[in-house]
């Protein structure tokens, strides 16, 4: 399912552990980096790769907020909703993004470009409000900065 380089990378990851199953989350995150989400095919591939049942992979994927069992947009935005961000511009940031993108939390824009999700505390409370764009942290976000950020994400 993956090219030789990625497969080798996943094999190295798997080799760090005394049992293959322990490579579950690192392998899934790497696979998700490649495919955007964990499709049923990816799930079954990972199951075989780790010598576990597809059910065990499904149980793990469905648990973690940062593993996506559904397709997502080309870019995933995670906006922090927890206290410090909420108290320091987070409410306004949400409103701005929901209006600008025309989606509610969890939704994907009609053109498939952005998926907007809520995240809990991203450990950057001092530079609130904070969001992740494709996993990279952006902080101290005034609306203009957010707009610029999204412009650059094609």
């Amino acid at each position: 399912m993956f090219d030789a380089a990625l497969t080798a990378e996943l094999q190295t990851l798997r080799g760090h552990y005394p049992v293959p199953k322990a490579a579950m989350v690192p392998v899934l995150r790497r696979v998700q980096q490649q495919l955007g989400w964990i499709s049923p095919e990816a799930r079954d591939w990972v199951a075989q790769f780790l010598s576990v049942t597809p059910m065990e992979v499904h149980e793990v994927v469905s648990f973690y907020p940062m593993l996506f069992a559904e397709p997502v947009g080309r870019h995933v935005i995670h906006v922090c909703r927890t206290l410090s961000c909420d108290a320091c511009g987070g409410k306004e940031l949400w409103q701005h993004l929901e209006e600008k993108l025309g989606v509610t939390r969890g939704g994907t824009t009609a053109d498939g470009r952005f998926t907007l999700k809520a995240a809990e505390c991203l450990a950057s409370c001092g530079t609130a409000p904070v969001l992740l764009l494709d996993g990279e942290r952006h902080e101290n976000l005034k609306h203009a900065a957010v707009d610029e950020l999204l412009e650059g994400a094609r």
Partner: protein
Amino acid sequence: MIRETKILSARFDKPESWKLDGFRRDGGYETYLSALKTRKPGELVAEVKASGLKGRGGAGFSTGTKWSFIPEGIGKPVYLCVNGDESEPGTFKDRQILERDPHQLLEGVGLTCYAIGAHTAWVYLRCEFAEGLRKVQAAIDEAYAAKLFGKNIAGSGFDLDVHLHLGAGAYICGEETSLLNSIEGLRPYPRNKPPFPAVEGLFGCPTIINNVETIANIPHIVKRGAAWYAGLGHKEDPGARLWCVSGHVKTCGVWEIETGFSLQELIDSPQFCGGIRDGRRLKAVIPGGSSSRVLTADEVRQTTMDVPCMKRVNSSLGSAGIIVLDETADMADVALNLMKFYAHESCGQCTPCREGTPWVVKVLDRIVHGRGRLEDMDLLLDIADNMEGRTVCALADGACWPLVSIVQKFRPEFEAHLARAHRAAVAGVGA
């Protein structure tokens, strides 16, 4: 007089502080290499115990004591897991170490593994720390290349492998037994104890789980000695810690300060937070990350940041995530925001937390949106009473502490919402 210290944070602002060459130029890894040759593991455990170092993840358990729980002659490998899952709301200090001085952490890992007899360590980082992951992985690669990790390190006969491991967005994985299940590839439910991880942990083997900041202290303690560390800060709660401040202050940030300083001074001092923003008045402070009891403005005035004082004011230092709230904060809404956090992050394994945390959210939501009833106040306290101390892990406790303390100390704010609801009901209009 509140003063910054530069022990853990000494190298944070240096150019390319995360790289090996700069770290070594500043004396990095010398303590580690020297200890491998000249110190016994048991000595290091005793040294850390005598230093009085406590865990910096939130629970504050004596680090050296935890290390001493590893049983002798058990015939299984010993493991170290570094807890870098920093997810406690208000906390962003571990990330500083990961991004700005990862080799300090890795030297601590090396020393800790040597002390406890571990030859494999996993550094567990939350996946949201993209920059931290890159920097720590690069640092691990540099350490291997410099033969600081691997086989027969510096001819000492000590072998050590250090691997990065990822989380995937769940706060519960910061709970040490959940972290173990997360590494094992299981649904990361916390485990019932006993057995304790030091006896039966990762893959059934003796395991120590320590927070990033805790481990970062080890090279300093080993180098300068337990007496030096025990002399820092408060007599009964020694050390210097990284303190995070966020919320309604002029300047948010992370500062390294010895224990025992005045919380009010930290907030007001122009060298630190510079007072409340926009000339407003302080209303409340959550001192130890969200899983700690809130302090009123009056209580803040009497609070010094050390364990004995926290006991007196019935709160905790927790993860040193100080959240400052001014008069514009609606404390009922604050409670709702935090309880949504706990309900979202509940793993769902055990009954009281799985059912109780969403129930609390539903009640608070009604109150905040003008559909509360007077009996909801006692109901909230009783739900909390039925959750606290009744669960597999402390997530439910962490939810109850802010909930109960906010309800008890800011009751008038809730009653204002209830009055609004009552007026609406009397007027026959929906709220």
